[in-house]
């Protein structure tokens, strides 16, 4: 499959009152056409800003490291001017945000907001753009789209708004879709509707997708490959089945074991195993392995920074336990 995105040695730092903090560093990954990549981790692990950095949606006080290179279809994103970026955003790369409530403009009808994409990127006139918008709304399963285009975001339910967001994101058939916690704000029956829709559309357009979530259930349902992030670094990456069947990093194992198992009956449920302690703040990441203070299997070597160690089948782990397993 054609490789469309390459992120190499991503480092994101912020200038703050407390000095420079670096919440993401040494993150590398790639994505092929039609592939769905999941980024999973707890709050503050850097998963959202990692994805935002791909289309340069970072706050003003953020800057990328000198060795960071992000290539989208062979072009280095960091060298693009803001006009050139504008052409990519919404057309080749688009996003679905977590909060459908705050990411739609309350002052414009949803029809206007979707047709804006067509007017800007495809130069369509208002009527033609509106027609395409109605088509798109029908595609994402909104009933009576001719009527709905004239409505404002507040007239729609949460699930409907998220469908509108998806319609807008997919309007120009992007090559890359970044979905940041696309179903976290939704109820479970509505979440199921939206996940089904995303899956259907992905198969139809073979869009490469990055799904950012803390929900291992969503990851297991949707993704081909997974990156597990902890404290600003990838600690493990691999094929979805490898990650769930043979997790290697103690954090991945801990994460999988700490969620209640819905597939196991009540009488067979065991006490949840826990990861002791709390997620560290980016201003005070521990030296060496960042998971060391919470790790049940930490040893002396963990005071040094572990490298990413690749084992078979593109399954990589950042942990000294697997040193020498190199293949």
């Amino acid at each position, binding site marked *: 499959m054609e490789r469309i995105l390459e992120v190499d040695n991503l480092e994101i730092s912020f200038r703050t009152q407390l000095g420079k903090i670096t919440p993401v560093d040494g993150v590398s990954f790639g994505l092929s056409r039609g592939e769905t990549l999941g980024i999973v981790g*707890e*709050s503050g692990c850097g998963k959202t800003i990692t994805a935002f950095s791909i289309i340069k949606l970072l706050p003003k006080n953020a800057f990328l490291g000198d060795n960071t290179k992000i290539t989208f279809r062979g072009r280095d994103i960091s060298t693009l001017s803001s006009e050139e970026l504008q052409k990519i955003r919404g057309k080749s790369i688009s996003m679905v945000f977590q909060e459908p409530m705050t990411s739609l403009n309350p002052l414009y009808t949803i029809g206007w907001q979707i047709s804006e994409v067509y007017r800007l990127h495809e130069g369509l006139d208002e009527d033609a753009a509106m027609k395409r918008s109605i088509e798109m709304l029908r595609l994402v399963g909104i009933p009576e789209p001719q009527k709905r285009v004239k409505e404002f975001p507040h007239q729609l*339910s949460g*699930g*409907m708004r998220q469908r509108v967001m998806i319609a807008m994101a997919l309007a120009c058939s992007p090559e890359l879709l970044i979905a940041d916690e696309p179903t976290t704000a939704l*109820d*479970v*029956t*509505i*979440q*199921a*509707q939206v*996940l*089904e829709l995303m*899956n*259907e559309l992905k198969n139809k357009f073979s869009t490469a997708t990055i799904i950012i979530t*803390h*929900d*291992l*259930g*969503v*990851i*297991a*349902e*949707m993704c081909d490959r997974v990156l597990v992030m902890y404290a600003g670094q990838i600690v493990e990456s691999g094929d*979805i*089945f490898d990650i*769930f069947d043979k997790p290697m990093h103690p954090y991945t194992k*801990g*994460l*999988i074991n*700490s*969620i*209640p*198992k*819905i*597939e196991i*009956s*009540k*009488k067979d*449920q065991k*006490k*949840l*195993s*826990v*990861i*002791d302690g*709390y*997620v560290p703040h980016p201003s005070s990441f521990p030296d060496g392995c960042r998971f060391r203070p919470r790790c049940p299997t930490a040893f002396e070597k963990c005071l040094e920074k572990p490298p990413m160690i690749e084992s078979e089948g593109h399954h990589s782990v950042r942990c000294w336990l697997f040193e020498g397993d190199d293949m």
Partner: protein
Amino acid sequence: MKASPMVEIKNLKKWFPMKSGFKSKSNLKAVDGVDLHIYGGETLGLVGESGCGKTTIGRTLIKIYEPTDGEFLYRGGDSSEGGVDIFSLSESKMRPFRREIQMVFQDPYASLNPRITVHDIISEGLRVHSMGKSREERKSMIAGILEKVGLRPEYMYRYPHEFSGGQRQRIGIARSMILNPGLVICDEPVSALDVSVQAQVINLLEDLKHDFGLTYLFIAHDLAVVKHICDRISVMYLGRIVETAETDQLFDNPLHPYTSGLLSSIPVPNPHMRKIGKREIVKGDIPSPVDPPETCRFVKRCPRAFDRCCKESPSLREVSDGHFVSCFLYD
């Protein structure tokens, strides 16, 4: 299970009147005729999607909201044989039950007063209920409970902002547990927490229940958590209970079409059990609870609805031992 329940809630209603211009007055029927019973020592789960009224039930039970109608019989503590109807008590007569029935709130950021120390937060209940003879005694009680919930006693002079989300939730739990309650209403106690911290708090709640012999009403929307912690589960939809059963019974043999749709909607964290493309989808959105029609509340989204469902409203009936469902399919 024990013969007579510790808590019996009968026909509980909580309506919020709405102003609507020239139209006649309408009511938001957040809770509309709910029957629940909770046995001593068990954990009853109350699940449902946002807006179904589960949080309103929890809040009405401790009279944060004044109930519109219904009875709340409580047989815990030193009350008489037949139990007391909490809703009929005056504020002063209710005082001992305010200690007996405690609540753990969802949002560990909003539920702790940011301007007072942990010591003051926890000791307030002790002073109100005249527990602990002296300042010193109260202080040692607080140190004890902090240790019990996994916090260092020397943290008691810190302020809430100095703690993480999980630690704050422990403080909220300590505040409830120190009063030696009989019934604890946990309103989404772990839904604001990260997965690794969520597991810590779930284990803590289970340990405390075991050590203090507590009874929980556990309100949540995460069915995996509910399955793990609850003995029995009641499923709510738009202000009413649609199904109540023992946990495994409910998961293995859901009767109400809403329950089976809800269970099928959950993404399972196991890629070998992918349901994408083959799950039973509950279509449509949750309708508005403002003046809902007197039919089955689920009729518009139900794949198995028939004539009768659009005309009458089903009531909650016991169809097999301990399995209650409110659906005409089982009439």
